[in-house]
């Protein structure tokens, strides 16, 4: 056995390191090389001006007059108006209350991310948290000044419409899906009529109806809160879509499962609760989440019925001659908020899918 070792020869430069990686991934063919060159050129032309506009030449806390002469983005439109954009007409001195309420909500959502913590106490925590948020927003007890819901606006309103809308629409949607698959004709027909009717009209019409037609049919002097009316319209609308998604899940469960449940002597409720729904709902996580995401974004349609959600407060700021014309900056800010919310939702659903092994 020879004891001498051969000198280690370094692998060719073109195979390892940065150069190797570039060759393997960016220039491993004529088409890919061309693509790389085109993209690099594109970034070269677009990137630097964009960065200059976004950061280098931008103004962050100036007046609108200074902004009009600046070459870069005017983030001052946000810094000067962020409180109105985020909280709308909520009294200026009391805005710590909606901020705290949102903080509570974010904490609850963060805790609920961890499935190991899904125990009974979390349910109670949610109940307590929601009460706490309601008290903070509404006031009137514990020495807090009452603030009417007509003054709620901005991000809390968007979140309120979205979270309560989705939380209420999901169970309703499941019930409707079960109703549609029911063997009882009355329930079946009612569910079908409801689902098809609601899916047949756009959300805008429903919001218009809730805001404009509906009040005219109420008795004299009776007015129902505008936010509640919009909220109900959103719930009714989203529920119909969720129902159809859940129905897809129900149909994917093999007949054998139902028969097995029957053999065990389980009744309808038990069959559904223990056997069918846990499997069906697991299957429909991806489509449900895309419905939830689109429903979240749809809440911005309440703009047209004059509710000051975060989109409307932003538009309102832009209608002010002082800040007119800085719409790109304001809408970029808004897009970031929406993106964070939607991305969190889809991220959470992927995690859930992984953990549940779907």
């Amino acid at each position: 056995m020879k004891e001498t070792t051969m000198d280690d020869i370094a692998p060719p430069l073109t195979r390892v390191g940065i150069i190797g990686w570039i060759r393997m991934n960016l220039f491993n063919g004529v088409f890919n090389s061309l693509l790389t060159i085109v993209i690099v050129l594109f970034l070269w032309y677009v990137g630097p001006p964009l960065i200059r506009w976004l950061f280098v030449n931008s103004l962050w806390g100036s007046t609108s007059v200074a902004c009009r002469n600046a070459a870069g983005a005017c983030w001052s439109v946000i810094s000067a108006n962020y409180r109105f954009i985020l909280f709308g007409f909520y009294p200026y001195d009391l805005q710590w209350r909606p901020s705290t309420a949102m903080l509570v909500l974010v904490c609850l959502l963060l805790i609920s991310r961890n499935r190991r913590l899904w125990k009974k106490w979390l349910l109670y925590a949610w109940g307590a948290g929601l009460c706490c948020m309601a008290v903070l927003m509404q006031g009137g007890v514990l020495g807090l000044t009452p603030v009417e819901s007509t003054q709620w606006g901005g991000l809390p309103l968007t979140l309120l419409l979205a979270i309560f809308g989705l939380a209420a629409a999901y169970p309703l949607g499941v019930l409707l899906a079960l109703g549609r698959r029911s063997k009882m004709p009355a329930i079946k027909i009612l569910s079908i009529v409801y689902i098809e009717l609601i899916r047949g009209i756009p959300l805008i019409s429903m919001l218009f109806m809730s805001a404009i037609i509906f009040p005219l049919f109420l008795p004299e002097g009776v007015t129902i809160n505008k936010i509640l009316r919009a909220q109900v319209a959103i719930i009714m609308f989203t529920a119909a879509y969720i129902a159809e998604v859940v129905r897809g899940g129900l149909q994917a469960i093999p007949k054998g499962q139902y028969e097995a449940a029957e053999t065990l002597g389980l009744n309808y409720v038990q069959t559904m609760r223990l056997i069918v729904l846990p499997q069906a709902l697991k299957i429909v996580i991806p489509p449900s989440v895309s419905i939830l995401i689109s429903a979240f974004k749809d809440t911005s349609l309440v703009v047209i019925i004059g509710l000051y959600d975060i989109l409307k407060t932003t538009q309102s700021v832009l209608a002010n001659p002082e800040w007119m014309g800085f719409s790109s900056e304001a809408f970029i800010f808004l897009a970031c908020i929406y993106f964070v919310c939607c991305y969190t939702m889809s991220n959470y659903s992927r995690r859930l899918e992984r953990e549940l092994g779907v």
Partner: protein
Amino acid sequence: MRSRRLWVWMSVAVILLGAGVATAGTLSDVRAKGFVQVGVNGQLAGFGIPDEKGEWKGLDVDTGRAIAAAVFGDAKKIKFVPLTAVQRFTALQSGEIDVLCRNATWTLSRDTALGLSFVQVNYYDGQGFMVPKKLNIKSAKQLDGATVCVLPGTTTEQNVADYFRTHNMKMKPVVIENNTELNKAFFSGRCDCLTSDASQLAGARSVAPNPQDYIILPEIISKEPLAPAVRHGDDQWKDIVNFSVLAMIEAEELGITSKNVDEMLKSTNPSVQRFLGVVPGNGKDLGVDEKFAYNIVKQVGNYGEVFERNVGAKTPLALERGLNALWTHGGLMYAPPFK
């Protein structure tokens, strides 16, 4: 298209409900509630828009405050309800608001078929033209052959076409759907003139790259009297709203401002004494406090002050008084005697 169909729907609903909607006593309802609910625009600078603290600002907003001052002696006893153009009349009909101060043009059909009652006009608007100064145009009649930036599908487009036809002039319309784009096109020089409601032209000019390079021509080619509205059939409430607006105009004519109103209480002029309630009578007839006009002027101001504060020369809109000057200064603002 949808909005038109909705319009028909709403009109039908309003007619169906008709008499049932007209309340017997808005005043007593308002007193029981403890505040006046006023429908406002919410997106129109100078007329109804919240500032960065969420405080309402504008000519229409101050008109609402004047009504609250007349009814309660406190301009803060008021709630503003921001409304869209489609919602505004329904909100009034359904009782969601007590009075509408939302730059609504007073027309015959609205006053009759929609079951509204308009009161004293608080702003006379009208369609106008804006041109770059360097064109050296002083009158709309010199606009022959001009390219005109205009929003499509509005009465604006029709008005401008009519105007050019009646004056035997030619025009090349540049039609752009979106208001912001329209303004951009004009400021970048794509057309010789921009046409819209005069108050909106002022708003557009205030955000121009160089506002001083543009002028708004004196000609106004359409009538847009903007007035507060109440439900039809409640005359006492209508009177209160009407005289709240008129009180601001009368105060300006009498030379009473929010600053000198306390001194004016000592005035020997019988008109001033009656107006401020030193000599009682007006308040009792109207069904409000004798000092209602005093409270309006003290807390909100006279019409001139309100105008200057919201849309006047020192604001970004920089509107001239024009038609909105007192009748003594060649405008249309004229209040009947307060006696």
